[in-house]
């Protein structure tokens, strides 16, 4: 009966619905919820748009109505339709005197408009006025809008006022002012560069919320210029200490951790400040040690802090004790059943591995489990780890795995990344040239169009220049093997364009070089390529150039040249090509064919791709001419830089300066993440190219000639760093095992089985006794991945102590977990509501069940009947709570959040809410079952 009354009361409220909106609006939401198809939804929205267009034009709309119209516009926009016809009304609403409307107006414009929208200019004035308001809620609303709408050009209009607000009496205003300045700094660092002292001052704000907010801009500032903030190390440390000692108000606690989000921010800043700085790091040791002790590793948030500590330790110069603590935390993560924690563990491992390379070894099986996990996120993280721990002893296994994975995925972004990693690893650690070429072939074959052009140029360069400096024999063997592999691949259908370019180039240069293949065979193949990929002009260009080289070599060596008929027809076709580039190449080829041997030899000498060609970048041969011109009164040349008065242009390109310190417009959406590995900024500087080895390619008018020239400077720069690793030593180690250092004992990498045998023999026996179900396949993998160091380790042990088995087991047990323990209830897994215990009954769910049964039964659709059925449940338990699962999972920590304590009261509220919903027509009667389906799945 109580419910009946409630419903009656709600009905009496008439059009003014229970949630503060009119019946119309609720009907809209309801009908959208009921829409059975996207088309139906669109129809409803379109008619709503018509209604609103009409209504917004009516004169003298009451304020409350107007507010609702704006909210309806927001709703339309949220559903993905265009509500731009109403933007102006939202803008107007920000001018209103009533705070309620003003706030709604600001809310709508922040959702509707981007910072470069034309209407912004109409709001700036209002914002300026509102920042001066006596009502701090108005100021807050304006500051919220500033954080979304102000762009570089409008910053100066509001900046002085925002700065003033840093000293406002209300902490909420100070906090938002800080965030606004933070946002200005992101938009245009120069605009707030003079305000840095203000940020420092706010760090000491009485209100912890303001202090916490100040950490955001400080983090950005510190990451741009560490050295100016070294003096703050001890302040940050002492704040962190106070936080961990629970000196902040209790309301900042989250799951019984004191202000964890502030702790994490502080740790991030400390990591920056302690990086490479011993004395700064030392100040942090104490508090970091405390954190490891205090963090509750049974909650997510505790683990989040632990993980941040690990990150911090991997950045600073850590003490051995801290490293140990970090390693312990990582092994806990890895042993957890939660995928999230495993992920964090793998990530942490990747961070610590550069400091203590041995650390991965004891987790090898965990790592392999993660590698084979069906969860792609985890898998990729693990590949990242493998990438970091690659060395010459395990490069083959790792790169093979990466390539298998690369072939299996469709995500182009990741494919590109993993392909470039494969290339990088192969370049650094390749055990042999044949292997290298094989890997490159695979990469090109499967991800050719995604690979950076540089990689192709790099490969061509490596094949041209060879790997050993003086070993011509090895070089020509390498070239031959490349040619052979390409001749095999070339007939496969649909090769990526880039790969074909490489193939054509290599065949042109070296196809006939050692006489194994005849010119007509190679030219035939090249013609096939040009024929099969007739729409790809670049490939055709490469093919024609290759033909030209082959014929040139033939002519130069005095052999008679028979131009194949298909080649002849290709030339003829290209002579009339629309592409001037192809046309020119064809004409050149035709001209060359009629020249005599000596002329040809001087035009295209054999194997000249490695010759150094001097490029006079300063154009010194023009000096005389310039001198003459100046003498006759010409103005001397002023470089563009000097003209525009910006002298530090090169600085713009350095990675950390992601802003140009000027007031130019800037419309960047996502900033590109910094490339993980390759330093690319080098390419932007005009370094004289010492060895433009592609000059011959480049001078032929390929459309990208200028690019490729710059590229080649890049290649040069990049290879310098890689050279030692790539070049002699590793190459030798594969050929002559005797010269390898003991550590690379299984640098017999061409026969991984040997490595497996020697390194995993002992560990395996200990595994078998403890954990018989470990897949031997996995162990093999583990041994080949981790083998190098583990074998050297066990060697060390065997020399130091006698009882190996004991040591072996002592080393391993942590990861042995003989019986796969039933995973404890995963705190994160709020997935299936059905999986939770009975206390968390979800009445909607029940209603849904009832609804189902009622529809099956056919008749019994008595609403009240349903209701009274549901009522007993709702009075005793939490109702339709999204958090009901949470309350279940956090049972161990009673009183974690307060709503739990007030359940009794809530159930009544929930009842009312339920009734309300029902009254508004959102009930599980046969009229609109889909809304329920929609809401609760």
């Amino acid at each position: 009966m109580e419910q009946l009354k409630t419903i009656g009361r709600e009905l009496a409220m008439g059009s003014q619905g229970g949630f503060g909106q009119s019946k119309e609006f609720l009907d809209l939401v309801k009908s959208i919820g009921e829409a059975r198809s996207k088309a139906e939804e669109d129809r409803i929205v379109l008619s709503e748009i018509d209604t609103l267009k009409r209504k917004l034009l009516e004169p003298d709309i009451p304020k409350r109505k107007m507010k609702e119209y704006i909210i309806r516009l927001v709703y339309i926009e949220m559903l993905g339709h265009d509500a731009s016809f109403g933007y102006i009304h939202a803008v107007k609403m920000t001018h209103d005197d009533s705070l309620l409307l003003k706030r709604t107006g600001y809310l709508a414009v922040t959702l509707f408009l981007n910072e470069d929208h034309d209407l912004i200019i109409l709001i700036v004035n209002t914002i300026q006025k509102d920042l001066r308001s006596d009502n701090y809620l108005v100021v807050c609303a304006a500051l919220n809008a500033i954080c979304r709408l102000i762009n570089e050009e409008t910053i100066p209009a509001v900046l002085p006022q925002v700065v003033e607000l840093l000293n406002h009496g209300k902490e909420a205003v100070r906090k938002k002012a800080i965030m606004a300045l933070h946002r200005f700094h992101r938009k245009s660092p120069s605009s707030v560069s003079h305000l840095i002292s203000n940020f420092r001052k706010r760090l000491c704000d009485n209100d912890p919320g303001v202090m916490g907010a100040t950490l955001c801009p400080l983090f950005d500032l510190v990451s741009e210029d560490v050295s100016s903030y070294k003096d703050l190390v001890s302040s940050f440390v002492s704040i962190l200490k106070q936080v961990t000692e629970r000196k902040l108000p209790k309301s900042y606690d989250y799951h019984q951790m004191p202000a964890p989000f502030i702790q994490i921010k502080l740790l991030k800043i400390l990591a920056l400040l302690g990086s490479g700085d011993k004395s700064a790091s030392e100040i942090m040791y104490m508090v970091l040690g405390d954190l490891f002790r205090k963090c509750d590793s049974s909650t997510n948030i505790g683990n989040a802090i632990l993980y941040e500590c690990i990150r911090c330790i991997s950045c600073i110069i850590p003490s051995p004790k801290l490293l140990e603590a970090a390693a312990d935390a990582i092994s806990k993560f890895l042993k957890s059943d939660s995928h999230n924690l495993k992920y964090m563990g793998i990530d942490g491992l990747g961070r610590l591995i550069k400091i203590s390379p041995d650390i991965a070894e004891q987790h090898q099986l965990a790592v392999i489990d993660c590698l084979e996990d069906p969860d792609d996120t985890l898998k990729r993280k693990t590949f990242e780890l493998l990438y970091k721990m690659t060395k010459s002893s395990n490069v083959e296994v790792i790169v093979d795995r990466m390539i298998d994975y690369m072939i299996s995925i469709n995500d182009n972004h990741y494919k590109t990344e993993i392909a470039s990693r494969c290339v990088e690893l192969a370049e650094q650690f390749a055990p042999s040239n044949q292997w290298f070429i094989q890997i490159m072939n695979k990469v090109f074959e499967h991800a050719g169009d995604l690979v950076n052009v540089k990689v192709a140029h790099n490969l061509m360069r490596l094949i041209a220049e060879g790997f050993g400096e003086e070993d011509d024999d090895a070089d020509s063997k390498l070239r031959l093997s490349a040619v052979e592999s390409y001749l095999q691949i070339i007939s496969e259908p649909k090769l990526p364009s880039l790969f074909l370019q490489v193939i054509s180039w290599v065949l042109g240069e070296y196809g006939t070089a050692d006489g194994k293949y005849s010119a007509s065979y190679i030219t035939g193949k090249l013609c096939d390529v040009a024929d099969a990929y007739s729409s790809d002009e670049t490939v055709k260009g490469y093919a024609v150039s290759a033909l030209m080289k082959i014929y040139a070599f033939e002519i130069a060596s005095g052999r008679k040249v028979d131009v194949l008929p298909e080649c002849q027809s290709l030339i003829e076709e290209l002579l009339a090509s629309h592409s001037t580039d192809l046309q020119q190449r064809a004409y050149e080829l035709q001209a060359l064919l009629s020249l005599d041997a000596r002329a040809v030899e001087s035009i295209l000498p054999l194997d000249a791709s490695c010759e150094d060609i001097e490029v006079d970048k300063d154009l010194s041969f023009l000096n005389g001419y310039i001198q003459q011109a100046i003498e006759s009164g010409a103005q001397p040349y002023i470089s563009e830089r000097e003209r525009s008065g910006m002298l530090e242009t090169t600085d713009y390109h350095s990675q950390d300066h992601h802003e140009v310190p000027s007031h130019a417009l800037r419309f960047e959406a996502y900033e590109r993440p910094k490339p993980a590995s390759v330093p690319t900024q080098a390419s932007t500087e005009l370094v004289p190219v010492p060895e433009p080895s592609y000059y011959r390619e480049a001078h032929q008018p390929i459309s990208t000639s200028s690019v490729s020239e710059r590229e080649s400077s890049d290649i040069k720069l990049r290879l310098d760093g890689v050279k030692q690793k790539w070049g002699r030593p590793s190459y030798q180690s594969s050929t002559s095992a005797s010269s390898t250092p003991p550590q690379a004992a299984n640098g017999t990498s061409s026969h991984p089985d040997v490595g497996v045998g020697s390194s995993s023999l002992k560990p395996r026996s200990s595994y078998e006794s403890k954990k018989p179900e470990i897949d031997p396949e996995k162990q093999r993998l583990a041994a080949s991945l981790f083998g190098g160091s583990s074998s050297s380790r066990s060697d060390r042990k065997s020399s130091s102590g006698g009882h190996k088995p004991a040591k072996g087991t002592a080393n391993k047990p942590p990861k042995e977990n003989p019986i796969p323990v039933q995973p404890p209830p995963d705190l994160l897994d709020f997935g299936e509501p059905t999986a939770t215990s009975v206390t968390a009954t979800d009445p909607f769910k029940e209603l849904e069940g009832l609804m189902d049964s009622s529809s099956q039964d056919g008749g019994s659709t008595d609403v009240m009947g349903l209701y009274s059925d549901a009522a007993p449940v709702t009075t005793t338990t939490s109702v339709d709570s999204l958090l009901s699962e949470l309350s279940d999972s956090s049972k161990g920590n009673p009183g974690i959040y307060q709503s739990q304590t007030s359940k009794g009261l809530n159930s009544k509220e929930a009842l009312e809410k339920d009734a309300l919903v029902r009254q508004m027509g959102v009930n599980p009667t046969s009229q609109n079952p889909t809304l329920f389906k929609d809401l609760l799945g």
Partner: protein
Amino acid sequence: MIRFILLQNRQGKTRLAKYYVPLEESEKHKVEYEVHRMVVNRDSKFTNFVEFRTHKVIYRRYAGLFFSLCVDITDNELAYLECIHLFVEILDHFFSNVCELDLVFNFHKVYLILDEFILAGELQETSKRAIIERMSELEKLD
């Protein structure tokens, strides 16, 4: 930095979308579609993190609702996962036992709460009480 926040139901209907970086309308729809497709079919045992273009999405499911945060690749995943949870706790407190219907009918209030919690893509306030107090001051106006 947080790039955007999405609340979507299992059918992919957007219940709330807040972007902290400027995006074109069409791009927003694409993002919403892609994020939904990514998270909806993930095994509940899997990590709550998914790579998304050059960023990553941290998501968490509550009953039929997915809360997704897109953050930088270098951000602390677990911290943002808990950040979602804190947000839900705040909602729960504000609506006393929040359910999806609350969010459907009061989405504008959810936006207001969000503005007190996250501003300019960063956590602005992490004290539940401070946020609830601010909201109740705003509520008084209604």
